[in-house]
């Protein structure tokens, strides 16, 4: 399989402009339908081995997502990207556009074109903000059309939606295969991380190929230690491997990079503007989608119960306050349902090897099997 860097280089050498999108849930279908190749700037651990340049622009108490994407944009901008897309996904992210510009320019690069929109965060009980979002998307489409000299078409958009729907459906099937013990969690995470750096047709081909090679039967007969894994990013590969080795079956995940991204898309929609109103409104609840807060805890607990998970593993992204504000309530709700919680914290600066987590994961397995 290609490394992410090889995949990105190939994308950049193609005919379509490559648009780096700030996490978490950018309008990928729209960019694709306009003839661009979007990818989300996360899951960059392998691509970004250090953050030395980013450390001159962003403090070490920012999350690894922000630090790595800053490093990536500063060091790879000229080689791999044609544009950037932002939205108000989080406070650190909203501070980044000018930081990235400063980083690129002080590194001797050229200013980059960037596009943005504001996603309304008002709660469902408040006045409907759909019109505002529609206007934001009209403006975004106009800006992209003007800059890249392209023309939006509803037909092409529908085609792109179809492709992304297919890709997300395949992700759900793979998650299901992990849940049934037919695919190690570590492999699943690797596949999805690699897929993140591909054009959607390639993503589909990769996911279909992986699915077609899966064994019919579970790899092991023992699925007593079923857990739901939650967090922003998939756990680092070494930790995924340890989870698999410890016999933990990932019955499902609530990871922003994974399930929260591919869980849902609108079934029906009138046009592109309506699509994105529904896309964000009906999105799987996320700690960063402030308006989804009321439905989030219930949705997570439901997933745990529906997937017969006996434990919950929270893989915390150090300094991600969105996740950490919610954790105590989530833990309480899960414990009320008799579901034990293991909370791990991943920091890019701590020198703790993955092995430190082995004892805790093994002990957790014993706990949930009792």
């Amino acid at each position: 399989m290609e490394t992410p860097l090889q995949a990105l280089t190939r994308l950049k050498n193609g005919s379509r402009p490559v648009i780096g999108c700030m996490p978490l849930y950018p309008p990928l279908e729209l960019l694709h339908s306009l003839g661009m190749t979007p990818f989300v700037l996360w899951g960059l651990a392998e691509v970004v081995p250090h953050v030395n340049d980013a450390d001159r622009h962003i403090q070490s108490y920012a999350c690894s997502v922000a630090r790595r994407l800053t490093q990536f944009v500063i060091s790879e901008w000229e080689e791999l990207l044609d544009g950037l897309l932002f939205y108000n996904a989080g406070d650190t992210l909203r501070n980044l556009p000018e930081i990235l510009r400063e980083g690129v320019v002080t590194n001797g690069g050229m200013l980059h074109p960037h596009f943005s929109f504001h996603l309304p965060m008002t709660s469902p009980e408040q006045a409907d903000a759909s019109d505002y979002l529609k206007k934001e998307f009209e403006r975004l489409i106009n800006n992209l059309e003007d800059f890249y000299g392209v023309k939006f078409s509803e037909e092409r958009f529908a085609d792109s939606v179809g492709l992304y729907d297919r890709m997300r459906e395949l992700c759900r099937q793979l998650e299901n295969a992990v849940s049934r013990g037919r695919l190690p969690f570590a492999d699943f995470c690797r596949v999805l991380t690699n897929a993140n750096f591909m054009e959607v047709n390639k993503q589909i081909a990769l996911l279909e190929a992986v699915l077609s090679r899966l064994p019919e039967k579970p790899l092991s007969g023992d699925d007593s230690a079923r857990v739901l894994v939650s967090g922003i990013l998939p756990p680092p590969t070494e930790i995924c491997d340890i989870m698999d080795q410890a016999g933990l079956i990932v019955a499902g995940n609530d990871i922003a990079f994974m399930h929260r991204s591919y869980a849902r898309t609108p079934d029906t929609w009138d046009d592109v503007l309506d699509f994105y109103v529904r896309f964000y409104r009906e999105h799987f609840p996320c700690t960063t989608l402030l308006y989804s807060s009321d439905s989030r805890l219930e949705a997570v607990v439901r997933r745990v119960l529906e997937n017969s998970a006996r434990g919950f593993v929270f893989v915390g992204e150090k300094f991600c306050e969105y996740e950490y504000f919610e954790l105590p309530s989530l833990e309480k709700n899960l414990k009320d349902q008799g579901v034990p919680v293991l909370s791990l914290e991943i920091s890019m600066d701590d020198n703790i090897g993955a092995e430190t987590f082995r004892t805790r994961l093994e002990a957790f397995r014993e706990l949930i099997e009792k």
Partner: protein
Amino acid sequence: MEINEKTQAGRNLTELLTNAYMGMHSRAANDAFVVWGAIIVPAEIFQGFDNVVFCLPESHAALCAAKGVGADQCLRAESLGYSMDLCSYARIDIGCMADNGATSPTMGLPKPHLLVSDTNNCSLLTKWFDVHHRELNIPHFILDVPFCYGPQQEKDREYILTQFKDLIKMVEDLSGETFNPDKFHEAAIYTAAAVSDWKRFMACAAHRPSGITVFDSFVQMAPFLVARGTKEFADHYKILADETEENVRQGIFPVPNEKYRLMWDNIAPWHQLRKMSNRLAEMGANIVAAPYTSCIGSVEGSFDLVQYDESLDPLWYMARVQNHSVCPMGMDLRLKAMKPVIEQLGIDGVVFASNRSCKVFSIMQMDEERRVKEEFGIPAVMIDVDHADVRKFSQENVYVRLEALLESIDAQRARATV
């Protein structure tokens, strides 16, 4: 809070704050409808209701930190599972709720019926208020303010205005009271007067030596948070501005031997006010300005006073100033606002207080520091501070850095005289 009781404004402030917090509790005890809001939520709206009390957990958390109880309240929140990396205001507030205000200098805040967060300063405040929303099972109104990289746009102002109207309706529905636009207008006029006097007070920094320290302005901003839109509040700032101007006329200065005039970039270090101002004064240094307090009464990208036009809808004015408070604006705007203040006040150096508890304010400062040095030609330094959690403050590291800044200023002056 380190209030200077020797001054009339200091004594008045103590009285105003005492009355404000006691008033909140007593009105709540008499069945008032209690709203907890974020600092930039227009408090004047709630003055348009007779029986609605508006409380600010952020301001209360700052008070707790200044009174030395913040760290214990943070610890309590951490014992409930809240990460030490979360904003210390939030941890103080959550800790304080958990002990029912027992450790608070004001017995906490009365229990709310409605939460109103505002994403302008940070959307984490929404996550923080969600904690109470879940625990207390009360409604949570999210005021959503788009971030500004350039001047606030009409479409965003309209969006904010719609939300203000929606908020008024929600308070009417929940409190059973009808909004009184006349009382609201009156509150807006009090605020406009107070803001104008605040700018008069802040302008006393222009004198050499400065008529104020930034620590005075940190302490004296409290009424904006607990009494905005009231007559007492407007009266207070008149007293403050008059007295400070008179002191300047009479040659009374907080740092008479002022050798270094500095700017502070971040929230106040609430637990260090007295100590830091004394230590700096011993070194002949005075922090005379901070975007945190200069921004009051302005719009994004400027610290100039926005004149209040009584013929316009006050809601429009309040929507217009939603991005003023530093955090809701980008780096270019922050520096644009700083530049004239640095020039007019003759700032010798800037202290960037990198505050891991307030990432929105801080993540941007590394480039700001570089640009201040390059574009404004003055030294700057970065120190580590947590605005409300004293456990994350290393006194010695901070003073070593501050001394280095003063040395850089000396070196620059020496070069200039060669």
